[in-house]
């Protein structure tokens, strides 16, 4: 049994009277690649945003190495450097070049000297195949390239866990592959990842763990073989059937 990294306990989130997440419980161990699947509006993204504290949970606990980060008074900034996030819409800083995007967090938040930050940024940009584009501005590169830079930006902070919020949903079909390849490499190197995705092939082949969410609750979870191959619940079966039917 490997080390527990994240533990979500009884997490609930409401926007006004609308309850988006209800009593979510699950754990992430070191090296896990957890794919969160489910229909739109099932609360997948909200769950991920709660874990990163971009949304404040209404109730419940998020334990990071045993420490409740959702409690009042904890500093979210230090925690967020340990838990990186990659967004559907990339969210690269438009006023900076590719290289600056990957450096700014290191120099401002981690207070690394700039030559060290530069070397780290270049290392990860190289890894995602974006090293030749370090002088480009985000508006000058394609969606798939932006997302790869966003992954490099998150990696440069040296996170323990990476959260991916539908990283390929905003991309043209032919660019999905380049981003998934990068993610697959990360998974192979043992990065702990939590991926909200509609890419069933990725969930099946890369993830170690699949969580199916339906209407704000975790409906079914287990290994990809269990959830995708032999789903027990009717909702999961219907969802997967709808996906295959497409």
């Amino acid at each position, binding site marked *: 049994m490997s080390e527990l990294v994240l533990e979500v306990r009884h997490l609930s989130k409401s926007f006004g009277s609308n309850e988006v997440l209800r009593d979510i419980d699950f754990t992430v161990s070191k090296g896990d690649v957890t794919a969160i699947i489910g229909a739109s509006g099932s609360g997948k993204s909200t769950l991920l945003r709660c874990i990163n504290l971009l949304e404040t949970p209404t109730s419940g606990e998020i334990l990071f190495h045993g420490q409740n980060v959702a409690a009042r008074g904890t500093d979210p900034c230090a925690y967020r450097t340990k838990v990186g996030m990659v967004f559907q819409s990339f*969210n690269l800083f438009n*006023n900076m070049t590719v290289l600056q995007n990957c450096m700014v*967090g290191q120099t401002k938040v981690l207070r690394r000297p700039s030559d060290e930050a530069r070397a780290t940024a270049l290392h990860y940009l190289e890894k995602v195949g974006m090293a030749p584009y*370090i002088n480009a501005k985000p508006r000058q590169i394609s969606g798939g390239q932006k997302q790869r830079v966003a992954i490099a930006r998150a990696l440069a902070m040296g996170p323990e866990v990476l959260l991916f919020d539908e990283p390929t949903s905003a991309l043209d079909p032919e660019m999905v592959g380049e981003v998934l390849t990068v993610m697959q490499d990360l998974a192979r190197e043992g990065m702990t990842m939590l991926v909200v995705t509609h890419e069933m092939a990725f969930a099946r082949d890369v993830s170690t763990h699949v969580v199916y969410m339906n209407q704000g609750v975790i409906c079914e979870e287990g290994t990809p073989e269990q959830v995708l191959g032999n789903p027990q619940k009717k909702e999961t079966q219907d969802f997967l059937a709808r996906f295959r039917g497409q």
Partner: protein
Amino acid sequence: MQRFLDLCQDVALLWQNYWPGYLNGVKNTLILALIGTVIGCVIGLVCGILNTIPYSKSDPAPKRFLLKLIRIVVRVYVEVFRGTPMILQAVFIYYGLPYFTYNAVQWPSVWAASILVVSINTGAYMAESVRGGIISIDPGQTEGAKAIGMTHFQTMTSVILPQALRNIMPQIGNNFIINVKDSSVMFIITFTEFFAFHRYITGINMMYFPSATVEMIGYLTMTLIASFILRWVEKRMDGSDSYELVQADQLTMAAGTYTHPDKGTPFDERSKEHRERVRQELKYGRPKGDR
């Protein structure tokens, strides 16, 4: 036609005799407008930033109270100074200080009073522009910054404000040009700017129309030059439309190590990767994201 020639003659005459006075007016107008705009922008920036500090229900009560108070104070300031004529503000402030101190405190110079009036007037307009500039930035930018652990202050200074400032540059230019023109109302507190000299000189020689022509040309020249400079500055801020691909291996260069030419890099034409890529390209066509 004859009248136009007369006008030209009169304008030439006025300029010949009084150009130092006119130029002095131009100088004072420009200095006042420039300083007023700069200080006004700083005021507006501070107000706009204070106004957009987020707070939620889970924050402690004193913090929420303070932020609410700041918003109310800024709101009142903006409404008062945006909602009254600058000419009246000038009179109000210039004569208000001695009035309230029983003449014990006078304005050290009319310059100080004028700069203050123009600054706080500009600040009131800029506060709203800055607020608009900040809220117009995609919330994704803030989330991206937060997700790598930046504080609100770091997010603002590194990510949001550089973009917001670019977006409000036209507004800053607008305010500068308005200040060049509207500082003319400062004659009311005896500030000798460009228009004040017109009032002075026409009081002597009654050449109202020729002098007004000189003024018109003068103001238009100032504002045209100003807008030209502003366009140029905006262009500079946008930076280049193109970028250079970096073809060398940056990491080894940064580390200062030497790569043997025969070894090559993935971008080297002789490397295995490059040959493979070329083969793939020939087979499947160039990937769209690549250039």
